[in-house]
């Protein structure tokens, strides 16, 4: 019994969801969004650690960031897959393991974006802000960060796009994401092989294209703002 086209497309979008775990494109979007968010917060702390005046902290954080950025996402995923169970003494659920590794990866990359923004803000702003009596944290939250965010917004969106594409890697540890569904369908029904890969590519394309369209518009707006 061959499934009909609408139910196939539903399979690609949300996987075997109501009956089984969430999958398909939905899991890619879900993972990309939540790891972007948690990586954003962790990345901010990493960036602050890297530019910190305490040499020990900044050395350690620099090492962590550089090593993470030098490794392929696939290896980071394997590290979490093999190493965390060893620490915890029992295997993690694969979704959690994927979440942790993607968060780590996105934190290291977003830390570099934050650092780029922080470096671009002149020392004078810090001095003026602290001379008006703001503490380090007030200065950070009210003066520096809003500017960094505005300046780096295109980079963050660019990274979100790349993170979304990179989530396709997690099928390797057995999550039924969009890629995995494409592979499964093409193996089960060889006559739908071309159809399933083209559909996967189109779904990825549409999402990334929409995101990059908005990124370009924001960038144009921002250029105007700086003029």
């Amino acid at each position, binding site marked *: 019994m061959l499934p009909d086209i609408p139910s196939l497309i539903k399979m690609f979008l949300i996987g075997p969801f109501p009956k089984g775990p969430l999958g398909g494109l939905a899991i890619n979007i879900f993972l990309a969004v939540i790891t972007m968010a948690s990586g954003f917060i962790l990345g901010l702390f990493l960036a602050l650690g890297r530019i910190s005046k305490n040499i020990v902290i900044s050395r350690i954080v620099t090492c962590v960031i550089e090593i993470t950025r030098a490794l392929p996402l696939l*290896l980071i995923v394997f590290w979490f897959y093999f190493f965390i169970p060893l620490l*915890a003494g029992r295997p993690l659920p694969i979704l959690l393991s994927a979440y942790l590794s993607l968060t780590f990866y996105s934190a290291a990359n977003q830390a570099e974006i934050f650092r780029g923004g922080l470096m671009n803000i002149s020392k004078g702003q810090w001095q003026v802000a602290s001379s008006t009596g703001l503490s380090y944290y007030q200065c950070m939250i009210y003066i520096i960060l809003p500017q960094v965010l505005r300046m780096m917004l295109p980079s963050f969106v660019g990274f979100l796009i790349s993170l979304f594409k990179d989530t396709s890697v997690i099928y390797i540890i057995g999550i039924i994401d969009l890629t995995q569904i494409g592979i499964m369908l093409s193996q089960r029904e060889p006559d739908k092989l071309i159809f399933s890969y083209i559909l996967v590519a189109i779904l990825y394309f549409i999402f990334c294209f929409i995101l990059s369209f908005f990124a370009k518009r924001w960038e144009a707006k921002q250029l105007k703002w700086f003029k």
Partner: protein
Amino acid sequence: MIMGSIINYEFDWQKILSGQYLEWILQGFQISLSLMLLSSLIAVVLGVLLTFGQLSKHRVIRFISSLYIELCRNIPTLIWLLFFYYVFPELFSEPVKTMLNTNPSLNYWASIAGLSISSSGYIGEIIRGGISGVSREQVSAAHTLGHSQWEIWKYIIWPQAIRICFPPLVSRIIHNMKNSSLALALSVHEIVWATQQIESITFRGIEATIIATLFFLSINYVFSRLALLVEKSFLTDKKLINKTEKVKDVA
């Protein structure tokens, strides 16, 4: 308790660094390296061609190159690899199809094709960015002075464009090198594949992962050092630096 479980794990390097496993690892180094270098090289060549396509006077060529770039940038590398491995042979008729499907190195060449195509879109954009960073006035000035189109490219546009686009180009190539690990999905016998294989046979995943990690770290380190060296010795305008230093001194 956490420390306890770390200490309880006994590393067994002997087992991994001998016999068949060592062979897999060494073969993995070799194949990974060749994937990285070959695909980066092809990607740069394609990227340069794309740049010319985008700057072309013909509207059709421009459209095709921008469509190509959008496709490269918006479809994950992994999907490109799978596409070249599974779908590409299907596009041909019978004799060619069986020939491709029975070719034992199809997975290797499919990974090269996928990696280089998905990077070439980015590289094309980067090079175009470098070229558009060269001011138009210089080109028109050179025209008025009677230089030919070829001379303008050779002496005025390229030297400056390369300086502008070298750092992002290097980081893109490093990204491409990291992406070469995705060839695991087509079971190309590269280093991460060796890791997985060793894990599934001996359950010594950690040691193997450490080896793969060190491999990627050293490749990354060596390549970025080399790039820095090239940038410092060939691509930096020493006069410009002296000037900026003088300006700083005055300030």
